């Protein structure tokens, strides 16, 4: 893990990194912010570990734990909501055995609710491993999740 973090940190040198840009690069590469990264980022930009931690906990998408193998996002925004997004959300929660954001027991899937996936005209929208799918129904969502689970 240390090498992975160092690789990202090295790639940021000379590019005027900030705490946020360094953290974004780390999560993009590694999938979460490993605890080893905190002092590294602090060292890179000349901040304290506290400041780095403060930024991590502010932006809601930063994770301090590794996510599951697959990443599922379901939109609960108002456009999707009026098109039946709640039914899709309920189906996904039930299928994954979760009551809110989190990772399934078998570490296979991580669910994150999103307030808008910018595809409102295709609502309800879900995304699996960053592939958006619109005009979702509870049945289609269940089918897609079943396929991902069996992968």
């Amino acid at each position, binding site marked *: 893990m240390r090498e992975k973090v160092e690789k990202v940190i090295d790639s940021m040198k000379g590019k005027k990194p900030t705490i946020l840009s360094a*953290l974004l690069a780390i999560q993009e590469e590694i999938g979460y912010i490993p605890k080893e990264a905190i002092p590294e980022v602090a060292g890179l*930009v000349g901040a304290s570990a506290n400041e780095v931690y403060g*930024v991590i906990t502010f932006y809601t*998408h930063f994770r301090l734990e590794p996510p599951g193998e697959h990443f599922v996002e379901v939109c609960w925004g108002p456009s999707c909501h009026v098109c039946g997004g709640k039914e899709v959300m309920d189906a996904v929660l039930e299928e994954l055995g979760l009551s809110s954001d989190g990772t399934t027991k078998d570490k296979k899937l991580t669910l994150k609710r999103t307030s*808008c996936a910018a595809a*409102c005209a295709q609502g309800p*929208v879900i995304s699996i491993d960053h592939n958006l799918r619109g005009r979702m129904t509870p049945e289609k969502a269940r089918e897609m999740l079943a396929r991902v689970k069996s992968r």
Partner: protein
Amino acid sequence: MPLSFDELQQKAQKEWEAFQRAAPSTRILVGTATCGRAAGAQNVVEAFRKALAQEGIHALIHEVGCLGPCYAEPIVDIIKAGHPRITYGNITPEIVPQLVRDYLINDNPRADMALGIHGDGKIDGIPNLFEIPFFKLQMRIALRNSGIIDPINIYHYIANGGYSGLKKALEMTSEQVVAEVQKSGLRGRGGAAFPTGQKWQFLLGAPGPTKYILCNCEEGDPGAFNDKAILESDPHTLLEGMVIAGYATKATNGYVFIRYEHREVIRRTQMAINQMREFGLLGSNILGTSFGFDISIALTGESYVSGEETALMEAIEGKRAMPRPRPPFPAQVGLWRKPSNINNVKTLSYVPEILRRGGEWYAGIGTERSKGTAIVCLSGNINRPGLAEVPMGTSLKSAIEEIGGGAPNGKQIKLLQTGGPLGGIISASQIEVPLDFDAMAGKGAILGSGGIIVADERTCVVELLKILCTFIYEESCGKCFPCRIGTAHILDLVKDITEGRGRPGDTERLLAMGETLTSSLCGHGQLTISPIRSAINYFGDEFKAHIEEKRCPAGVCKALGRQG
């Protein structure tokens, strides 16, 4: 030595003509902006690759942006030599092999799948694209190239008038460029509708040498997707606008501020920036003048408040996106304490055409105090959801009924949620209101960033308000206490109402708390009252039914009966 602008234009013209003539081979354009991808456009691209290979046909595939009629995604255009360009709708991967055989081999243009044709040609059974109901009322300025050109081909942009506005600006003084924008009457499209020319004047007057132009593409408003659509469809129109803004204000650097997760938006914008550098449109000595300006992309994380202009600067500095108190204003003390100007994507995307065609031309469009066009995102319970640009003053009704085709399945439209979560919830009875900043605000229906969510009779207004208040609460940055504490109380109260614990006086309490929140540090808390006030104003009876009769007339709130 980069080409001169004349040479660039000539080369661009040649490239664009070849594209339109389908030389050297047929062109297939697949809309792969966010909404296209959500409809499976990426699989359509693959299906074309396969079908072309199978049939041994040579054709060039271009991934283009969003044409607007999202209801018909995936959208594909085919330009075949000797034929007008045809736009097809609802092209699934399954249909592709048939379409390739029918049109590309057997010359049957499949009028049944077509939405329309471009230009003056005629094909039996296919209307002119811009005459179909979705486009008829539109006037496309910022969206003029969206879905039409290849967004990552700078020649396409230049051949369609691109960078002529910049060229013209560079022959004027900074003061004259500011005056031209002032003459246009352009007002900001990021929410507050502040006059753009006046804002630029502030920055022009601020001391240099380092000054920043910041373009806000955070676009965290659920229901709005037009800023990202512009960057995916025609990034150069924004970037040209930024360079002009830089010249007008004597700024040195620009940042496009985008949320990390919109990878395609970022990719296309970065490609466009690279092309500008290559063509001498960015960096030092732009177009051979002494003016230098550079643009980079600044990414932000997930935080709605980071779209607020002072929080945005904190985010670019890499900190928690919490607003700064004002004064000092950004034009005095901005990014890295340097004078800065923040504009929305749409605002800046109008600028190239304003320079090219003149401020007076722009001021001739729209209403007395809202000039130009409104770029609206239609979504929710509507037959033809999509992205449309209409002259200001067009009624909301025309946008929803004529362009959007009204509510599906013969349902009645109940309400409209406009301008994002800090906007308004208004009754369908107000649908005649013109799209105009002030007229909309007068009805409690903020035009804001242009999101218009249509909801039919199946929606419960209190539950919808709960969704908005959940968003407002979860996204409060926590810096000032009216917003941090107040949004939590407001959400609790709205939840209570939907779950049968409403008490008489709750609507008054909600309004009073909303009023208290106007003392917040930034617009997030200050505007929380807007959806509350408009919802209670138009749907007081529905709140009353929930609170006093323990009844949800729409039958949505599970803890309550429909009949009480």
